[in-house]
Every structure is written in C-alpha cells, then in structure tokens.
C-alpha cells in the first residue's frame, strides 16, 4: 500500500521545527511501523536527505525506547501496543499519517522525534527503590509474599518507562508512571519501611520536573502499552494523603 507521512522535523533542541511531508510507497502490511520508517529513511539517505531520527532499541515492546505520537494517539491506534510492535496492517492504502514527538515541558525535543525523558529517571532516583545494598540479604523464602500481592506488584512493575502516559495526558502529567512504581513497591512487604517517604519524595520530584497534575482524564491508561491501571493513581493519592498526616 502507499501512504503519506507528515513528520515533525527539528534539527536540534533549540532549532525551529515543522511538519514535513513524505511519500511512503509500497508499504507491506507485515512491516512494523518502525520498519516502515527504516525504509523511508533508506530512501531519504540515498537521495541525499537527512533521515528521520527516532528512538528505538529492542523493537519487541519491552525497552520503552520507542515513542511516537501517531495520528494524535501515543504509540498509535492499537491498544496495549508500543510503537515498535505496531504493524502496518493497522493502516490502509492512501492513509495520511501524522507522526510527532512526545510533547511535554519535562520532555524537551532533542531532534526530530527524539525527546529527553531523563525526568522519569530522576523520579525513580528520588525514591523509586528499596534501599537494600548488595550483600546481607536474608534467604529469599524468609519473606513471604501472598500471591495476590505479588501479582498486583507485578501488574504495576510491568511499566516500561516509555512516557506515553505523559504524552497522552492532556495535562502532561507523569502520574501513571510514578504511581506504577509506587504501587509496585507498595504492594510488597519489602517496600513497607520506606512506603511513605517514597511517595513524598517521588511526588515532590514529579512537581520539580514540571509535569502537570491529574484531572483523571484516563488517556494515560488507554495509551499505556502495558495496561497500567489508573487505580495505581488512586493508590498513590491515598498513600500521599496518609503520608501527609503521618510523616
């Protein structure tokens, strides 16, 4: 099939950007979205133009590198699917596809479709961990974790840190990302000692990074390739309120 792309091109962090149109002829429905872009880039290169820069690495939906706003939807039209796992069979001949970078004050554009998501790392650094330095851990089976707790923790821990929740949120809020980590650690017995310190410092970091607040639009949950639930956000708020009164 033949497609037309409108892609955000921006030479550098401070450069002026704009949407540029490209033809994408002879696209196979079995291609992944990124393979389609590869082919476009090959053609651009041989014709002496700069290829389109976009983040990607594992190409199997787990590393969280890929990050494209496709036709106004973070990670494109397919639910629970990262851009790299999206296949061209989700489109049809003659479609015009708009491709833009994640947009948020906290995610400055570096080039074309690549943004800086370092803010998410700093949120984790602020408290998204259990302080257990290497060595001296007791035997693993001395900590009993009820299956339901382990499953709930795993549901939240599935977050790949792609930032689609921020990109999709009308407020550019990082609530879902932050809440996912807080829920992951908060569901586990190992996570209890630092539970309330954690929520305070992570939420505080989220503010410092200039993310928006949560109006509960629910767009983040829909865009999340790992189906993280906004229930985690309620949980974060609950812990934040508790922390406010206790600590």
């Amino acid at each position: 099939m033949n497609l037309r792309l409108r892609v955000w091109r921006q030479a550098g962090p401070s450069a002026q950007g704009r949407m540029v149109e490209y033809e994408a002829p002879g696209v196979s429905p079995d291609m992944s979205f990124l393979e389609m872009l590869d082919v476009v880039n090959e053609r651009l290169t041989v014709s002496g133009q700069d290829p389109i820069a976009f983040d990607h690495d594992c190409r199997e939906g787990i590393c969280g590198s890929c990050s494209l706003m496709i036709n106004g939807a973070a990670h494109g039209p397919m639910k629970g699917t990262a851009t790299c796992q999206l296949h061209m069979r989700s489109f049809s001949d003659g479609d015009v596809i708009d491709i833009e970078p994640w947009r948020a004050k906290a995610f400055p554009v570096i080039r074309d479709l690549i943004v800086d998501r370092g803010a998410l790392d700093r949120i984790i650094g602020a408290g998204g961990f259990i302080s257990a330095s290497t060595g001296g851990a007791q035997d693993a089976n001395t900590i009993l974790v009820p299956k339901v707790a382990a499953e709930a923790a795993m549901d939240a821990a599935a977050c790949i840190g792609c930032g689609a929740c921020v990109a999709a949120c009308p407020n550019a809020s990082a609530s879902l990302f932050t809440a996912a980590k807080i829920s992951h650690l908060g569901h586990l017995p190992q996570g209890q000692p630092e539970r309330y310190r954690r929520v305070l410092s992570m939420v505080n970091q989220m503010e410092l990074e200039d993310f928006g607040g949560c109006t509960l639009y629910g767009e983040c949950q829909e865009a999340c390739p790992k189906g993280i639930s906004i229930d985690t956000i309620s949980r974060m708020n609950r812990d934040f309120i508790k922390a406010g009164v206790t600590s």
Partner: protein
Amino acid sequence: MELNAHVPAGSLEKKWDRHRFEMKLVNPANKRKYTIIMVGSGLGGGAAAASLGELGYNVKCFCFQDSPRRAHSIAAQGGINAAKNYQNDGDSIYRLFYDTIKGGDFRAREANVYRLAEISVNIIDQCVAQGVPFAREYGGLLANRSFGGAQVSRTFYARGQTGQQLLLGAYQALERQIAIGTVTMFPRTEMLDLVVIDGRARGIITRNLVTGAIESHIADAVVLGTGGYGNVFYLSTNAKGSNATAIWRAHKRGAAFANPCFTQIHPTCIPVSGEYQSKLTLMSESLRNDGRVWVPLKPGDKRPPYDIAESERDYYLERKYPSFGNLAPRDIASRGAKEVCDEGRGVGESGLGVYLDFADAIRRLGAPVIAERYGNLFEMYQRITDEDPYKVPMRIYPAVHYTMGGLWVDYNLMSTVEGLHVIGEANFSDHGANRLGASALMQGLADGYFVLPNTVGDYLASARPQKVDENHPAFRSAVGDVHSRTERLLGIDGKRTVDSFHRELGKIMWDYCGMARNDAGLRKALELIPALRDEFWRNVNVPGSDRELNQALEKAGRVADFFELGELMCIDALHRTESCGGHFREESQTPDGEALRDDENFAYVAAWEYAGERQSPILNKETLVFENVKLSQRSYK
C-alpha cells in the same frame, strides 16, 4: 601473550571463599579517591555500578540508550537459574555447576562455573530484597519452573518479564546511587576507544550522542559490561543498538578475544517475513513444554497445516530424540530445524520455518489452561504475524540469540589488559560452547553484584594506579583516532546505506558461520567479508555531521567493527575443526549426525590476539583442565 587464569589453589568448593580472604582490600576512607569507569548498565553493568557506588567508589557509568533501564537485559523473558533446591528435587550447587559445564560442552573453566553456581543463591536473595516481584505460590513462597530441558525446577521467573524485573531492580539501586552522588550516569554516550597507559587501562574515549562531543574519561580501572555481539548477523534477537564496538576497540588495544565463533542460535523465534525485516523476536523456550514441532513429510508440501494428516507429518525432534523430544537443547533443536528446511520441507512463504503445534495440548488441557500458561506469548505472536496460534500452529525458525564468546578474562574477570575487567555477556567466561537457558541473567548478576566489586578492589589495592591527565599523549592520540575515523566515515559519501552493508554482512555470516559450518564455506566467507568491507569504506553513505545527533553515523561505526569481528569469528570457526555446542562443523559429526567433540586437540579456549590492521590474528590457548568432572559426549537420545 601468556594467559594466566589466576585460578586460586584449593578444592573447587573452597576456591572463592579462600580467594575472597586472600584478596587485598581498599581502605574505606580511600575508596572515593578511586574512579571506576563502568561501561554498560545492563544486568552486569547496572548491578556493578550500583554495588561499587554503595561501596563508596567514585563511579562513572555509561550507556548508549537514553536511560540505563533500557539495556537489552530488559528483553530476557524466561527466567534465572539458582541452586536453591526449594523444590527438594535434588538440585544442588554442584548439580548446577555440572549441568552448566556439560551444557557448555566442556569448553568452560571449572573454577568460574563453580563460583557462578555458588553465588546463584545469593542473587535470588538480593533481588527479592530489592522488591523484584518473582512468581509466588499461594503460601507466599517463591515459585520455580524447569527451563530449557533441565531435569530440576531451579528457574525463578516474573511472568514473561524476568529480565525486565531483574534489570529494574539493578536500575533502581543504580538510580539511588546516582541521586546520592556516588555514581555519575552518562546516558546517550558511546564508548569509542579504550586508553591504555603503561599496559594499564586508564580511561575511555566517548562520543556524546546528542551533541557529538568527543570526550576523554580518566579512571583507575575500566569495566566493560557491554553485552553480546549477535548483531554481527544483522538479524538477531538483540536490540538494534547492541554492538561490539566497546569490546572490539578494547581488543585492538590488547584484550584477547576468546572463542569468537561460539554463538547460540535459539530455536523458537518468529520467522523472517521480508527484506525489510529489522530484527527477530524470540518466543520463550517454555513454549516447547507443550508445543509439538513438526514439518510435512513430503518436500514442497504447501498445503495448510490442517489438511496434512498425522501420517504425513514428521515430528522430527520426537523421532530423533525420544527421551528429550521437543525439549532437546537449543543447539540441537535449531540444527534439526535447519536440516528439515534444507531438505525443502520448511513451511511458510519463505520455506524457512517449522510448525510449533499446540493442537494436542489444547485438546488435552483445554484452551484456558494454555491461555493461562502462554497467553501473553500467543498475543505477541498474533500481533506480529496476524495468525491465531489457538487455531493455526505457530511458525518458528532459529535465530541468533546469544554469544558465548567474548573478551578473555581470568578468574578475577580481568582481561589481558591490566585494569580492564569484563562482565556479563561481553566476556567469554562461563558458558563454554553453549549456554543453558536462564543462565545468562544469573551470570550477569553474579559478575555485577558479587564478583567484580571484590576483584576490582583487589586490583586497585595491589596496583595502586598513578595519576594521569587528559593531556597524556595516549589520550590525545586516542581522541585523534576517533576524530579521524568519524571524519573518514562522513567523507566517503558513497551510494549505499549502512544498513544495506550490514544486511549483506549478516547474510554471509548466517550462511557460512551460522548453524552449521564447514571448511569451504568459511574460506568463502573469509574472501567475501574483506571484499565487502573494502566496498563499505569506499561506497557507504553516512549523511549529516559529527557535531549533532546522527544515528547513521552511530550505525556506521558499529558496522565497521562488525566487519572485523565477523572475520575473526570465521577464522576461529575455521580453526576449530571439532564440533562442540553451538559450533557445528559438518566435518566432525557422529554417524547419526550429532556433534562430535575432539577433546584430544580442542579442549582449550582460543584467545585471539590482535596483530594490527589486516594482519592475521595470533592464536593463544588456555588449556582447560577438568579435575572434577569427567568429559563425556553429550547425548539427548
């Protein structure tokens, strides 16, 4: 060069314990005076950087992704082994050690492998303490499964995302140290050269992938945890960015490269669908617990699977290996698939695929049970192929997955360059000629959390490196080299893209240095690769400049190194005329077509030494002595 493995004296069980006592310690007050460069933030690098930071060293950690959390360890699905014997099914440190040595077809170093098995138990404790959400039983105890045909249940797992969860554990510990300030993180930064002064590794040259700035970083010790080099084959289950540049540069600066030809081909991957294919996706091995592998009996039989009667099907693994059947080890299962496809009995468009059929399992257990076990994998398969595995059998084909070879290291994980340590998949250490499922995560974390932090201290305490600075001629010339190299790549301005060269190189490697290798093929490859490499340096087109984010330039540099490494792999494969593990030489097989080892002549590690541009590399041998295990032919019949 002489290869001294520095294996401590004493009985196998006591070696590590004793070594830890004998190693010199760095005075806690002095630790922060030492700078350690950690290249890589995967299970190896992430765990090491965090642990070294916790110890108080001044750590600089590098990765090419935008965040340390994206290292390719994230993609590991199946699980991680540990000799906990929680299932009371007769597992033990010794059994894990033995299985790993045997699985590696007796081409690994006993002492290292034993230490790995020993440490495996601490890994699980450490990870649970960090909050890794391993699968649990209803009673709250840890769950285990048997993996990759192991006879005991020793594999710990977190759904199909074990690697991700283990890496996030290490990553969170790392971010904690970064926030405290013991570790400085350099994401989107690629190591382009190693700086060696007076025979010691003293720093690296990097390129800032955002600004293009070339920078010098000085250190008292350098550690590489940069992962595997499977992308030499272009198509592999590795990430697009996975590269050999760091280890290859180090090799050119004096680090011996061990067993480069030992690569693992994973039997259950999704087949190639077209020219544009950019990478291959692994389907967890666990699928083989319930799926049955088959192809049509008749060559060229293009009928849809369900029009092919039982009597016209060949369940070749069950036929050839009655006792292991569909659970035969990776190398064997992969070769089986290749054979039947070579006979023209492969399925799917390309004829490069075999069926993995769940019809029986669904009949026996019902779709819900299968969904519970493999639901997410079935979904992933359907998303990619648009076929429903509940109705049509999956199509699978082997793909390059793991590289057992890597930089040679001694018992302390130090390479042949003083002060240069190598951990994780980047080194050659523990898996011999074939890696068992769920053992790489174990090795990465063992190296990173428990081995390296001790041995680096020993090195620093004994070597007491002197101060150097960026103006040292060695740094200057290294920076110069990097600059001239990038300028050269940008200057060629030819007709072909980097990817087109990479694809062609990959095809050569796959055809002649893949699942089955022979003398003629390897010699052919050794003519084709240098020729293609020359064309690359004449005719590649790398747009843009080096003063900006330039993904084409990044790729070009990596592919240039793959050419040289690919050549070395073929040289190694050619010289090792025996078959062992993942390395199958058609000249060396048993009457019934199984790999035939030659312990007489090849019970050694082939550590190749760089001899200069276009010089043939020098072979050094580390003879493998087996004091504790008896060498036996692997048989899974």
